[in-house]
């Protein structure tokens, strides 16, 4: 090997030693701390924005534009006016996922809590419970009929379509919801690590070497790209939640 490039094993990038309560089920490590930080930040944003002033400033500005954004481009596009009751839930979900993601690019932390499967899986299960609850509450047992028998399917195809719809609604949806967030953040994290390792290795071998700038420039560009991905994934998670809840509440006729 020319520069003796050593890529750290993936377990070093994703598994962190316990900081507190090691060995117990309540062990706290870095992803858990980030999780708590995201929780506190979400809460703090809502409290900071709660002091209503006529001319908004600071946190209230952020919160008001976020409410507008979720209202216009998530709820009105997927559920319509009736969906406004879910605004607090979707807003909290959006900010929580966003804060969990954005730690990916914050200097000295640089780890997205959502790149461990636990948090996306938990959020996806929560969304699964909520949309099924909404469907059952609004339609009772007819909810299963709504899910499994889409309108306008020819009779011979019905058993196959019903099976596919059942599996896709109750199993594939939460799975893909969790995997989408998890895999995006994991891929982004690995990408940043790859270019950071490349930059560091080239720097060690010869700081004056001209090519050392190439991976560094790419690293900076990718950091910007990852900020976009963090925002986009939070948005997509929220909008898919809205689509699932809307679909359960108002099935197609």
């Amino acid at each position, binding site marked *: 090997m020319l520069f003796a490039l050593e890529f750290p*094993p*993936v*377990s070093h990038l994703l598994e962190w030693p316990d900081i507190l309560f090691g060995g117990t089920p309540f062990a706290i490590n870095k992803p858990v701390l980030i999780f708590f930080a995201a929780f506190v930040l979400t809460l703090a944003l809502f409290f900071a924005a709660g002091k209503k002033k006529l001319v908004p400033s600071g946190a209230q500005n952020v919160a008001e534009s976020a409410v507008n954004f979720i209202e*216009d*481009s*998530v709820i009105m*596009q*997927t559920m319509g006016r009736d969906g406004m009751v879910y605004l607090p839930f979707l807003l909290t979900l959006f900010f929580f996922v966003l804060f969990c993601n954005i730690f990916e690019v914050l200097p000295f932390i640089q780890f997205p809590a959502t790149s461990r499967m636990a948090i996306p899986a938990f959020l996806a299960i929560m969304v699964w419970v909520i949309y099924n609850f909404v469907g059952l509450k609004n339609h009772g047992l007819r909810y299963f009929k709504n899910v499994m028998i889409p309108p306008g399917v020819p009779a011979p195809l019905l058993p196959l379509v019903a099976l596919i719809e059942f599996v896709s609604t109750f199993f594939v949806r939460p799975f*893909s919801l969790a*995997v*989408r967030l*998890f*895999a*995006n953040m*994991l*891929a982004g994290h690995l990408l940043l690590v790859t270019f950071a390792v490349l930059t560091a290795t080239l720097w060690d071998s010869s700081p004056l070497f001209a090519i050392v700038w190439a991976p560094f420039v790419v690293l900076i560009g990718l950091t910007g790209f990852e900020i976009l991905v963090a925002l*986009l994934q939070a*948005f*997509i998670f929220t*909008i*898919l939640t809205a*689509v699932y809840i809307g679909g359960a509440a108002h099935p197609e006729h």
Partner: protein
Amino acid sequence: MTLSTVLAQTEPGEFLDGLKAIGAGLGYGLAAIGPGIGIGLVVGNAITAMARQPEAAGMVRTTMFLGIAFTEALALIGFVVFILINFA
């Protein structure tokens, strides 16, 4: 050096690891083809729609992100399989 001499010189585990790496790389590459074309189609058509009807841009954009999310899931599952084969 023929294939049989190469096989005779490698440990069985080593050979298996090599096959795993090849399979993982090929698997991810193949999983990325379809979604790549799919996302191209989705975004391209969304841009056409936005150019034709700029007043519907908001609705088109939301639907576009939905389409991207569903299409992209296949590539991401390929990526997860890659990670699982290589590191798990």
